[in-house]
Structure formats: structure tokens, C-alpha cells
């Protein structure tokens, strides 16, 4: 029995695959935003430190 036939007969697994893809996409997006925000935060801290050194 091929994968297509299996999923056709057991459609709950197709829903499972879709749910997993949705979650992994959301998770990947959140992780990406988290990393980007950390980088911005570090840059801002560096700029603030430079500013206070100048003064």
C-alpha cells in the first residue's frame, strides 16, 4: 500500500501531518523573532554603553 493510499484510508494522519507543519512553522517563526530581538537588544546595549562612555 502506497503512502497516498494509506493517507486516503487513514485521513487522521493527514490532519496530523498538517497540524505538525503548522506548529513547526509557528515555532520556527517565533525562534527567528527571538534571535532577531536578541541581536537588536545587544546592539542597543552596545550603543547605550558607547554613549555613556563618551559623556
Amino acid at each position, binding site marked *: 500500500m502506497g503512502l497516498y493510499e494509506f493517507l486516503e484510508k487513514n485521513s*487522521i*494522519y493527514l*490532519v*496530523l501531518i498538517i*497540524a*505538525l507543519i503548522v*506548529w*513547526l512553522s509557528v*515555532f520556527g517563526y*517565533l*525562534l527567528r*523573532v*527571538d534571535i532577531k*530581538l536578541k541581536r*537588536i*537588544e545587544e546592539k*542597543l546595549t552596545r*550603543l*547605550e554603553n558607547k554613549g555613556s562612555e563618551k559623556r
Partner: protein
Amino acid sequence: MFLKILLGLYIAVITVLAFVIPIGFIPGLGERARIIFLHVPSAWLSVVAFFVSMFYGIRYLRSRNIYDDVKSASSAEIGFLFCFVTTVTGAIWAKFNWGSFWNWDPRETSIFVLLLIYGAYFVLRSAIEVEERKGTLSAVYSIIAFVTVPFFIFIMPRIMPGLHPGSKGDPEGAGPVVTFKMDPNMRILFFASLVGFMLVYLWMFKLRSKSEILRIKIENKIYQEG
């Protein structure tokens, strides 16, 4: 970072288990009861998020700290998102259980009204430009809006007859979540899912409020240097 990846795997495992574990026979629901692992935690999380929004609203009114306003708005946004997920997953489930996506069941009506109430919150925020005024008005609105949440989520759908499990006149007496008369497998996975959703909410809340706080800090820096 390691903990976040662990959380991602945890939710992925819960998603897989939600579709494969035996959940026992639930009259009138059958396999469709599996929606409980996604639909109910997102509904509960929307209540938690709206509560947090009200909490930071109160804090803002006391402290006048703009970061409290940011946290209040961030939590309301995430609550709205979870409320929307609840509505969409519920509508898909309704199509297979009741035959149509929307039936104006008391539960559907109450969540729709809740979406409208919090939709108006965002309209209010976007309509006011002065930060302090925006913060004060939206804090007051978030307090008043939260007063309606327990009524629309927990009371109204249970005192009115309807199609949703747990409504008044439900032939089973109450829905499986209301009475917690669940199969042991189902109960464990349900609470595990609730914990996972809670952690995702906390992560999203941190990200959303942090991005907004950073935006304010950068704007202040540009203003000071320009």
C-alpha cells in the same frame, strides 16, 4: 535557546499523541473529541491572556509606566489570537459534528461577542495618538472588558441550552472537560497540552512586549540624538 527547542519538541510530541493515543468512547463525539487538546487549551489561554492584560492595565493606572501599558496591550493581542484560534478550530469541528461551520450556538455567539469586545480594544488604541491618554483609556477598557470574560466563557454557554458539550440540557449532563470525566490517557494529555500552551503563551508574551519595548527605546534614542 535549548529550553525553547525543548518546548518546540514537547508541543510536537503532544500534537502527535493527540492524534494517536486511545481516548476511549465518548458518546456523540467519538474521534472528534480529539479537538479537546487544541481547542480547549487555546480557549483557556485566551482567558489567562485577557486576565494578564487587565492585571497590567491596573498596574499602568497605578504606576503610569509605559512598559505596563505595552505588556497589557501585548497580552490582549495574544489573547485575541488564541480566541480567534478557538473560534476557527471550533467552527471546523462544528462542520463535522453539527453539519455547518456556524450555528449561532450560545458558545459560538459568546466567543464572537468576546472577539468584538477585544476588537474594539484595538480600535480604541489605534484611534488615540497621545501615549498617556491611550494608555489610560485602554487600561480602563481592558479592566471593563475582562469583567465580561468569565460571563461569556464560563457562565452564559452553560445556562443556555445549546449544541456545544456542556450546555444546559446536554444529554451527557456536561461535556467531558466540564466534569473531567475523561479517559485517563486523555486527561494526562489534556493537562500536558495545557502546560505546553501556557509556556508558548509566556514565550509569545515575552517576545511581543520585548519587541514593543525595544521599539520605544530606539525611538527615544533617535529623538535624543536627533
